[in-house]
């Protein structure tokens, strides 16, 4: 208790510094740059459109950008095929973000008086840093044949394929029939890959990744790019949209690492309305449902990839609303109700992931492998939860956007009876701004400032009390 009090006191001047830093940086940025008003610059370069034409603030798409994407990266003006471009044109863009950030977590497992790993401590760190590097390339191979390839690295330049897909567009001349094959982002109206925020907890949508504490469902993650086949369609003006995806339940990992017959599906639909002076508002829904394995053959105790059986079910469903209130203000709302099989809730599921550190070590609380004769503990139930995400924006000008986000996820049923009803609940909010000092069709450049606060109930590593972290970040986000 005394330690906490000391820590809290020490924190005060730091907070003041942080607030001052944020205010000063914002002021410096606004005053320092005074250009006229500019995502994938490769597309912008191809079509001669400013970034702002497709992006509310890059990388987040606006309605026109969404339509361009839905058309298979085509403007549909008979100039989309590469044959119309200069032969030297190659649609490549890289993106990386140098930053300064300050990260603080209130309870980290540390050595101490209670023995190795027996204590918790608050750790705060700050310094200059880098994001990973993305190499985007995409566009049309011919009219109505498009592709997207995104090799992406972490901050140490370790690469993986974030996206690799080919798409047949406007099959039979109809915008209602387009087919995509490969690894791609799910058709979330609020795209996480185009998120405007950059901090560790603020840089993802918690709603898209939530899995209850001790739940070992492999899949159920809407935010990760997935391997599969997608059929999508839309009206000529993109007012009406739908998509249906068939996905391998392997969280986008190549090489069939999990079950041999485990698939999932993701279905979305939405309708936009002309709301007069307010703008174009949209209402939609999504459903993600499928099965993933819980039982594995083993060799010397190690799970064998691809041997997963005993598929168990899960689901995520919710509504999405995108509301515009004139030129400057908009609000996106995403709701979710989620449910996992009781087997996942009790720790069965993702066993292969622990190949190098067998499950009992990596997950001491779970039995891990649903072999023949396994039974669930008495009273086990399917964990369920509800969540909502609110993200308002204030578009000061096409060059500057102020943004905020509030997310909350509340468990409505724990898998194990008697578990604290709020265990694993999440609350997080984020504030930030992005300012583009120039706006052209050649490159993207943004001064970025952001603060995120994250709270989860009962998940600190030793005492199982509440975990809180925060991050303040300033940086320069650019792509070319």
């Amino acid at each position: 208790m005394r330690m906490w009090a000391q820590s809290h006191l020490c924190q005060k001047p730091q907070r003041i510094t942080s607030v001052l830093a944020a205010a000063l940086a914002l002021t410096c940025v606004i005053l320092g740059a005074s250009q006229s008003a500019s995502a994938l610059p490769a597309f912008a370069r191809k079509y001669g459109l400013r970034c702002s034409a497709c992006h509310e603030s890059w990388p987040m798409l606006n309605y026109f950008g969404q339509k361009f994407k839905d058309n298979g990266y085509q403007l549909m003006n008979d100039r989309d095929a590469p044959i119309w471009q200069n032969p030297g044109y190659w649609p490549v863009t890289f993106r990386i973000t140098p930053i300064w950030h300050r990260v603080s977590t209130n309870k980290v497992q540390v050595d101490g008086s209670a023995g190795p790993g027996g204590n918790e401590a608050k750790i705060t760190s700050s310094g200059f840093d880098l994001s990973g590097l993305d190499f985007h390339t995409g566009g049309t191979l011919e009219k109505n044949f498009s592709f997207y390839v995104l090799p992406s690295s972490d901050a140490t330049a370790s690469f993986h394929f974030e996206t690799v897909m080919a798409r047949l567009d406007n099959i039979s001349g109809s915008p209602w029939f387009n087919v995509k094959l490969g690894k791609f982002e799910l058709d979330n109206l609020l795209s996480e890959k185009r998120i405007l925020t950059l901090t560790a907890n603020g840089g993802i949508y918690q709603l898209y990744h939530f899995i209850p504490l001790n739940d070992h469902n492999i899949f159920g993650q809407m935010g990760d790019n997935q391997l599969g086949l997608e059929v999508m369609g839309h009206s000529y003006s993109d007012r009406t949209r739908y998509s249906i995806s068939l996905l391998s339940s392997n969280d986008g990992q190549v090489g069939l690492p999990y079950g041999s017959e485990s698939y999932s599906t993701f279905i979305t639909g939405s309708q936009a309305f002309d709301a007069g002076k307010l703008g174009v508002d949209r209402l939609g829904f999504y459903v993600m449902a499928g099965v993933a394995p819980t039982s594995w053959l083993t060799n010397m105790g190690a799970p064998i990839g691809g041997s997963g059986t005993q598929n168990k079910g899960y689901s995520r469903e919710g509504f999405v609303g995108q509301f515009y209130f004139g030129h400057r203000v908009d609000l996106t709302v995403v709701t979710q109700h989620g449910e996992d099989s009781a087997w996942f809730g009790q720790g069965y599921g993702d066993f292969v992931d622990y190949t190098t550190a067998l499950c009992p070590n990596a997950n001491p609380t779970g039995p891990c492998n649903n072999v023949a004769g396994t039974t669930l503990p008495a009273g086990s139930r399917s964990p369920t939860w509800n969540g909502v995400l609110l993200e308002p924006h204030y578009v000061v000008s096409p060059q500057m956007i102020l943004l905020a986000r509030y997310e909350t996820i509340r468990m409505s049923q724990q898998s194990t009876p008697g578990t604290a009803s709020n265990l694993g609940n999440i609350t997080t909010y984020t504030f930030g701004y992005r300012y583009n000092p120039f706006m052209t069709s050649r490159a993207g450049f943004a001064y970025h400032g952001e603060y995120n606060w994250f709270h989860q109930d009962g998940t600190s590593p030793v005492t199982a009390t509440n975990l809180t972290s925060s991050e303040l970040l300033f940086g320069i986000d650019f792509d070319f």
Partner: protein
Amino acid sequence: MTRRRSRFAGADFGLRVLTMNSLKPMRFIGAILFTAIPCTAILGLTFVAGFTATVSAQDEPLVGPKPHVVVKPMESHIGNITGHAADAKSDYRRYCAGCHGEYGDANGENAVWLDPKPRDFTTATFKCRSTLTGTLPTDQDLFNSIGRGFANSNMPIWNVFTKQQRANLVAYIKIFSPRWEHEKAGEPIKIPAEPPVTIESISHGQALFAKLECWKCHGTHGEGDGPSASTLTDSKDNPIRPYNFASGGKDARFKCGSTNEDIYKIFMTGVDGTPMPSFADVIQPNEAWDLVHFLRTLQVNRHGKENEVLMAAHGVIPPYVDRTPAPAAAPPDNKTPGGGQ
């Protein structure tokens, strides 16, 4: 396995716990460092921001501040929607200015790379109109142009906008030329009902295509390769190519639309600002429809009634025979001026 796709993972202290012991000394000098580091960052940002502004300023071709765009209180009227120029300022800047320029003078930063060039709103000369050549287009014409886009150009199909947004943009376009303050839009031409497509109408259209010398620019097969094609320029002396009817696919569109009525309007009103003249004074409305039917047959990849009729005739257009009855001989004039009972 990467569960989180955050671009930064700095808050994951659980994975970095062994290295965090190195933070301990920071507790002693933390007060100094913690002030110094953010300040350095902020100063760095300030420096970069200032530097960027300086460099950008050096790139500017004009010296001194740019004049402010004065948004005149122009309006547009589309059905029961009234567009206001002032409400389109942000949209124009976001979507249009990159090509058409902040001042509507077709001098946006992308204009130099575009072919064909963007429209210069300061001249108030517009290609796609329902009004006679030389007159201003109607608000509806401009409204339709924004929503339709321009095939074979960089002008997108802006049908994602609300009708109100498009109406506002129509009003905004008007602020760039004084013509809108002194002139009214022309009267839309009257388009008679389209007669049935027959091989005779196609044949007559072909004869008109020859007689009006359309082939000189568009080529005998409509492929945009006539003898004059390489010499054509628009009203700003930029090279311009005549339309290639044969190039489009099943969904081929013209710049000013895709229906037969749109084609009719194109050559009856002319495409102002280009060498394509108006033929309103040269051909009669029924003749114009025959020309439309023939032009459709030049779109060889399009499935339409005209090509069906042509296929039924084994792909051969018979020579046009003028079966118009000769003017009847003047009836005998039994009356003498002023005569009568």
